[in-house]
């Protein structure tokens, strides 16, 4: 399991570092909201999910897309605005989708996909399937009314869904304490009628265990939903490839605390060096291939402008 976690975390981290490295060349024609620092939440959750389980995310969903098995080549091509992109260059970084991997969409408007995940879970239950849905959102989404409406309906109908709040404390540059009276997101979910727990410290192992247990119960026929508030930290700026400590809304010391417990570093220390090198070599080759694929992919045809507005 440690090696699986390491591969998944390292892969996402390195993909995004490559995105950041390429970004100044202006080849990536899309605003990128990097997940660097937050990978553990997506990996911990998605490692506990099955291929037919479904996820919905936010505009910061590179990690979720990759952790759930979204196609890497098509993701990079999408960032490049190319025809082979997962949305044919018409979605961009903020609207990643891979229906084969059951990554069912991501929205740039905060909180927007939460009810869609709930609706998908309603359908899954009606269709008597045993797959589950995971809804990813940040602490900013908890400010939105739709968050409460969605949790209420999911609880009312006992839906097979796991809510995953990635609490990185900031909505763009505004700390949670300036937006919410109480630091108790998980308790609010309990108040809506579902089991809820807070998981500190980017603890990928703990997240994996919690989700595995919840999903196991859902598949066994227990009532949903479940709620997890996962404390995590965004190391890069809200949007773009760089650090932003110079802005003054947060300190480098605050980030250092999270860097010291970075799960990638911790797992690396425990891995057999030969296995670690093998994983890293394979991942680096895959990333190189994906960027080369994106570079070589053609631009969309002009006719694509008017394609997929309506059916047919």
């Amino acid at each position, binding site marked *: 399991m440690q090696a699986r976690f390491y591969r998944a975390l390292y892969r996402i981290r390195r993909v995004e570092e490559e995105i950041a490295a390429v970004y100044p060349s202006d080849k990536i024609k899309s605003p990128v909201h990097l997940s660097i620092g937050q990978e553990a939440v997506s990996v911990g959750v998605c490692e506990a999910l099955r291929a037919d389980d479904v996820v919905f995310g936010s505009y910061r969903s590179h990690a979720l897309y990759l952790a759930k098995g979204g196609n890497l080549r098509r993701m990079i091509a999408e960032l490049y605005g190319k025809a082979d992109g997962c949305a044919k260059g018409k979605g961009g970084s903020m609207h990643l989708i891979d229906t084969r991997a059951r990554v069912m969409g991501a929205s740039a408007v905060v909180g*927007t996909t939460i009810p869609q*995940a709930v609706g998908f879970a309603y359908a899954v239950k009606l269709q008597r399937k045993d797959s589950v849905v995971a809804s990813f959102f940040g602490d900013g989404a908890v400010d939105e009314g739709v968050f409460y409406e969605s949790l209420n309906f999911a609880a009312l109908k006992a839906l097979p869904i796991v809510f995953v709040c990635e609490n990185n404390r900031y909505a763009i540059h505004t700390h949670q304490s300036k937006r919410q009276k109480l630091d108790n997101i998980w308790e609010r979910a309990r108040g809506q009628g579902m089991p809820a727990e807070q998981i500190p410290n980017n603890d990928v192992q703990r997240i994996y265990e919690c989700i595995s247990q919840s999903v196991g119960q859902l598949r066994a026929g227990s009532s949903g939903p479940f709620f997890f508030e996962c404390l995590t930290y965004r190391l890069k700026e809200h949007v773009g490839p760089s650090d932003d400590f110079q802005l003054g809304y947060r300190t480098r010391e605050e980030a250092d605390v999270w860097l010291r417990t970075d799960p990638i570093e911790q797992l690396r220390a425990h891995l057999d060096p030969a296995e670690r090198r093998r994983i890293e070599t394979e991942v680096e080759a895959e990333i190189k291939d994906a960027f080369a694929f994106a570079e070589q992919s053609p631009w969309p045809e002009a006719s694509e402008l008017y394609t997929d507005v309506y059916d047919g």
Partner: protein
Amino acid sequence: MTGEIERELSYVDAVREATEQEMARDSSVILFGLDVDDPKAIQGTTRGLLEKFGRERVFGTPLSEDAMTGVAIGAALAGLRPIHVHIRMDFLMLAMNQLINIAAKSRYMYGGQAQVPIVVRSMIGKSWGQGAQHSQGLYSFFMHVPGLKVAAPTTPYDAKGCLIQAIRDNDPVMYVEHRILHFQRGPVPESSYTVAPGKARITASGSDVTLVGISYMQIECLHARSYLASAGIDAEVIDPIWLSPLDIDTIVESVRKTGRLCVVDNGWVTCGASAEIVALVIERLQQIRPVLVRRLGFAPVTCPPTPILENLYYPNATTIASAVYDLVRGGDNGWMPKQRVDLQEIQFRGPF
């Protein structure tokens, strides 16, 4: 309309029958919204459906228009065909993010990997003091946005056919019902049929002027046509039925013949459906022939509940006839037909 039909049905029963037939035909169709399962059953349009199809497929919802619209979208992404009902169109303002940012855009921004086959039924109220927030015809908001379809059927026949089409359609459809039209009766075939998007209907032919009446204003336009006939003016009346996609060809061909166009909307004229229709007609005909145009709609104010002011707020058959008389004869003639009992507007039968 074919020969087989002579059965009469109310608009309400046409909507109910369309829903029932589609739910029986396709188990992926589900129906929900505030009060769809209550004793009043949305004026009767959902009556009996809970009993027939069960609580999983027919259910009332929390007062959460925003989330429940997202739920509809998510269920559609999973392969269901949800019908989401709103007893007033005004309530859709609480659902705009989901409708505009997700429902309309999913097919495109996900590169064709996703589709959102939802039907959003909403009702426009009128009279009996419904006032500011129970009366708005806001469909032009949705006409503005690529990716949405908009139907505003007037007759029971079109109510059934448009709803069946909307349910089977793979795109999100805003299905707009006028509360006053619910009382209409008309021929409706028992069998299942669709009224295709993007096809208007000439409801009365004429040669002097083209009247386009949207939703309930279609009824008033047909009455206005009778008043105009008494003044020797022969009006052609068109019901667009679908506002998006809009069958502008049928309207253009009529105006090419008449040279005069009056669009009567069940909404405000500014940036509305009437503005769009007039602009499209002028763009098509401006190099070909001179065209005179007029738009009529709600007064540019908030709808007042008191009947004295409310009567001034809405166009009706006599005010439409008066405006069209001036359009045809030229000038400001001050002609106003005397109201005929047989051409009075349909009244809402209160109390609530």
